[in-house]
C-alpha cells in the first residue's frame, strides 16, 4: 500500500505495517532511516502528496487574498507547524498566483504520467 506518512506512521510504529520506502525525492525527518524509492533502486521516481485551498471560480479577489494571508499567518504559528510535522506534513504557504501555477504544473505532470503509462482513463 502507498499512503500518506501521517496516516500509516502509527501503524508502522506499532508493527502492524512495515515501511519500505519514501515516495518523494528526499527522506523525511520523521523517518530518516527510510530510504527514498530512488535510493532503493528505482531512479527518477518522485511523488509527493500536497494540500492547498481552492474556492469556486469568481470568488472575490479580496476574499481570496484575505484567506491567503490568514493561511500564511496560521502556518507561521509554532503550534500549527508542530501539529503538521507530528502528522508527517511540511507546512508550505504560497501566494494565490504561485498556487495557481503549481496546480497547472501538477495537472500537466500527471497528464504525462497517465498518458505514458497507458493505464487509460476511467469513464463514467
Amino acid at each position, binding site marked *: 500500500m502507498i499512503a500518506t506518512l501521517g496516516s500509516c506512521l502509527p501503524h508502522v510504529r506499532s508493527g502492524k505495517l512495515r*515501511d519500505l520506502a519514501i*515516495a518523494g525525492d528526499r527522506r523525511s525527518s520523521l523517518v530518516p532511516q527510510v530510504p527514498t524509492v530512488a535510493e532503493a533502486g528505482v531512479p527518477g521516481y518522485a511523488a509527493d*502528496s500536497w494540500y492547498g485551498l*481552492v474556492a469556486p471560480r469568481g470568488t472575490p479577489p479580496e476574499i481570496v487574498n484575505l484567506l491567503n494571508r490568514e493561511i500564511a499567518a496560521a502556518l507561521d504559528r509554532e503550534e500549527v507547524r508542530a501539529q503538521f510535522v507530528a502528522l508527517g*506534513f511540511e507546512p508550505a504557504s504560497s501566494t494565490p498566483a504561485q498556487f495557481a501555477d503549481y*496546480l497547472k504544473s501538477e495537472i500537466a505532470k500527471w497528464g504525462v504520467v497517465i498518458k505514458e*503509462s497507458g493505464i487509460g*482513463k*476511467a*469513464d463514467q
Partner: protein
Amino acid sequence: MSADAGNKSQPYPSHPVRFIVPFPPTGGTDIVGRVIGQKLNEKLGQPFIIDNRGGAAGTLGAAIAAKAPADGYTIMLATASFAISANFYAQLPYDSLRDFAAVSRIASGPLLFVVHPSVPVRSIKELISLAKANPGKLNYASGGEGASITCQPKCSTTWPACASSTYRTKVRAPRWRRCWAARFS
C-alpha cells in the same frame, strides 16, 4: 483586515463558511482541513465548518465546490488527487483549472510505501522481485480510482513492476461508480 462579500456593510465572513474536505473524516486530508479551519475560525470570528464529501478520489467534493456560489462561503481543500483526477477521469462534471480559484498552498506530505508484515520483503527491490515472481498475486489497497495512492504503483513511468503488469490485482475501497449514481441520480 476584512473583505466585503458583495455587501459593503457586512465584512467577510459574516456567517459560517462551508469548508469542503473531499475525503472522509480522520484521514490526513481531513486533519489538515481541521487544523486550518480552526485557525481561520479563531482569526476571522466565524466557524469554518468542515463538510466531508469523500468518494471517487475527491471528485465528488470538487463537483459540489465547483457549483457552489462564488461568494467566499464555500471553500475546498485540494490535494494531489485533484490534479491526478483531472487527467484520470474521462469526464468530470467540472473543469479542474477553469472552475476554481487558487487561494494558497498549505502543505506537502511524503507518501510511504508499506506492506503487511506477512509480506516477505524488506525493501522496494525485494518487493519488485516478489511481484515479478508472482504475477497477479499481490494486492494493494487504494482510496479510489484517481487518488494519488492508487496511481503510484499503477502509472509511474519509472516503476518497473508496473511495466510488467505485476500489480494486477487490487482491493478498491470505495465503489466510485456507485458513489456517482447515489449522489447525482
